[in-house]
């Protein structure tokens, strides 16, 4: 037990469980109802995937504030393709093609960030703030600001379908989280990412291909954003430049709550997953209790600070 409490993730897991139990205790028949559990499972994957992207960027000591912009731009491009070229009766193959297009847009957006950060040396926080505005701007310019509709019904599956009663978005998120966790801990790319985050100068002196690592990393963030954008599009049956605008702060909050060090070098995907879950439990639980959504925001912030305080005090105690 005390071993568990010694790690950031261990404490976070405990917090997640406490939140779950608390919410279940406060409104047992509603919180634990199958509808509520499914509803939660449908809700969180979209911002959870964005949080994964932000977390991955933070591992390098950077940040990606353009995730929402990239997500919407990818979704808008895919939606325009489906609405105008494919039409409402397009099949799964066409939707898959649109998905690939979204991924490509995300990739290009990510590469753009990567070049800004790695090649031109912009501070990531400003580079991605600026590029995020540009991505959103392109999405607005392409759509005139209104929603793109008329998607084929096959497109609804990824956001609303289920596989063996498990929501597809949840499956996508689980696969992505597992793949990222594996990528970050078991591959040379992941290790390089974290080593770079820990000390960029030493990474260069160790003849690490730092530029390539960063560019690949931001490209990865862009593609994750595109997946999130596609899910949002599918769930909304439309794409628009300003969907999910409140997700950015939430994604950053989750990444940090998940124990990712925003100054680089430390962070684990499992932490992000736990943070996402505790946020969702809190959020849905409070909604069931009829607590206003503003209080929810306050509780999130307080939770973040509380976790940081606990981590710091725990570290002080051990040293």
């Amino acid at each position, binding site marked *: 037990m005390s071993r568990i409490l010694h790690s950031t993730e261990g404490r976070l897991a405990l917090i997640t469980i406490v939140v779950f139990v608390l919410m279940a205790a406060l409104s047992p028949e*509603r919180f634990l*109802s199958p*509808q*509520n559990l*499914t*509803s*939660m499972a*449908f*809700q969180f994957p*979209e*911002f959870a995937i964005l949080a994964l992207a932000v977390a991955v960027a933070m591992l390098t000591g950077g940040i990606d504030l353009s995730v929402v912009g990239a997500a919407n731009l990818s979704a808008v491009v895919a939606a325009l393709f489906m609405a105008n070229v494919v039409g409402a009766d397009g099949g799964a193959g066409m939707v898959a093609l649109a998905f690939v297009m979204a991924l490509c847009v995300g990739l290009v957006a990510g590469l753009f960030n990567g070049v800004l950060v790695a090649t031109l040396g912009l501070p990531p926080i400003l580079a991605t703030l600026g590029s995020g505005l540009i991505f959103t701007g392109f999405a*607005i310019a392409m*759509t*005139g*600001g*209104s*929603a793109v*509709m008329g998607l084929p019904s096959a497109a*609804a599956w990824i*956001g*609303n379908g289920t596989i063996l009663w498990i929501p597809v978005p949840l499956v996508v998120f689980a696969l992505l989280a597992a793949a990222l966790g594996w990528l970050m801990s078991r591959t040379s790319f992941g290790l390089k990412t974290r080593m770079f985050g820990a000390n960029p100068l030493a990474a260069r002196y160790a003849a690490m291909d730092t530029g390539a690592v960063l560019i690949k990393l931001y490209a990865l963030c862009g593609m994750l954003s595109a997946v999130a954008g596609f899910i*949002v599009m*599918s*769930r*909304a*049956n*439309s794409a*628009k*430049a*300003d*969907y*999910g*605008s*409140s*997700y950015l702060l939430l994604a950053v909050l989750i990444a940090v709550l998940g124990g990712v060090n925003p100054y680089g070098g430390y962070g684990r995907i499992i932490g992000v997953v736990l943070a996402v879950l505790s946020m969702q439990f809190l*959020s*849905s639980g409070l*909604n*069931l209790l*009829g607590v*206003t*959504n*503003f209080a*929810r*925001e306050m509780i999130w912030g307080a939770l973040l600070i509380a976790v940081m305080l606990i981590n710091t005090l725990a570290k002080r105690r051990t040293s």
Partner: protein
Amino acid sequence: DAHAKQMATVVKIDGIAWFNRMREGVDEWAEETGNNAFLVGPAQADPQQQVALIEDMIAQGVDALLVVPMSPEAIEPVLGRAMEQGITVITHEAASQQNTQYDIEAFRNEDFGANLMDRLAACMGEEGEYAVFVGSLGSQTHNQWVDGAIARQEEAYPNMTLVGDRNETADDQQQAYARAQEVLRAHPNIKGMQGSASTDVAGIGLAIEERGLEDETCVFGTSLPSIAGQYMETGAVDGIGFWDPKIAGKAMNAVAMMVMNGEEITDGMDLGLEGYGNITLDGKVIYGEAFVDVDASNMADYDF
């Protein structure tokens, strides 16, 4: 009691004056009918947050969902799921909504826009330059009002000219103020401005007052007396139009109840609410005649 229905009104954003007024209506209705009707809204103006909130309401097992969509397209799927589960779905301000049993509109948006234009034109002496403002370029309602207004001007007031694009204000008074300043600089001869978001005319009014152009210009738009009142007092804003969200809230709940009771909605029906005494039914859209014209002379009658 056991027959009380759970009826959730989900609005675009919680806390603002407009939806607080709507909450009054919902609460009043709950009181009158003994049903458990309540109003909720997300903390941020983001369609996705509204979707999440609707999901939570479905999970909670409500009997009826009454939604004022932030973005009608974005909530189609989730409303579809709600209807599949047998939940009664009524919407407001979303004439194009597919997954709804009835959509309630206080009026036809084009008519409302045209009405504002008539008032603007009368004030301007039917001639001169005017500009239009929308909360966001993506807002269907705002654009329909503006479309209606421009169509009326083109048809009826040939001596008036529209200058510039639709100015986007992000539903933010500061933005509206800055856009208005810019319009005033770019078009010194401007005579009229029409706002769409409730904060638009307030921002415009502030810019007008600062320049002392209260008498030279005419400003009309959708707003509430609590927001635009101080500018109507000085004449910086010449008039506003709106519908009473309190009555709209009641109307949504009333229609939902009728649907749940299996009553039929018919053209020309009387919902028993002011402005909804002789409704027009067009497909599943219910149109009322609930617009309220307010200017300095009658603003004291509306305390919200």
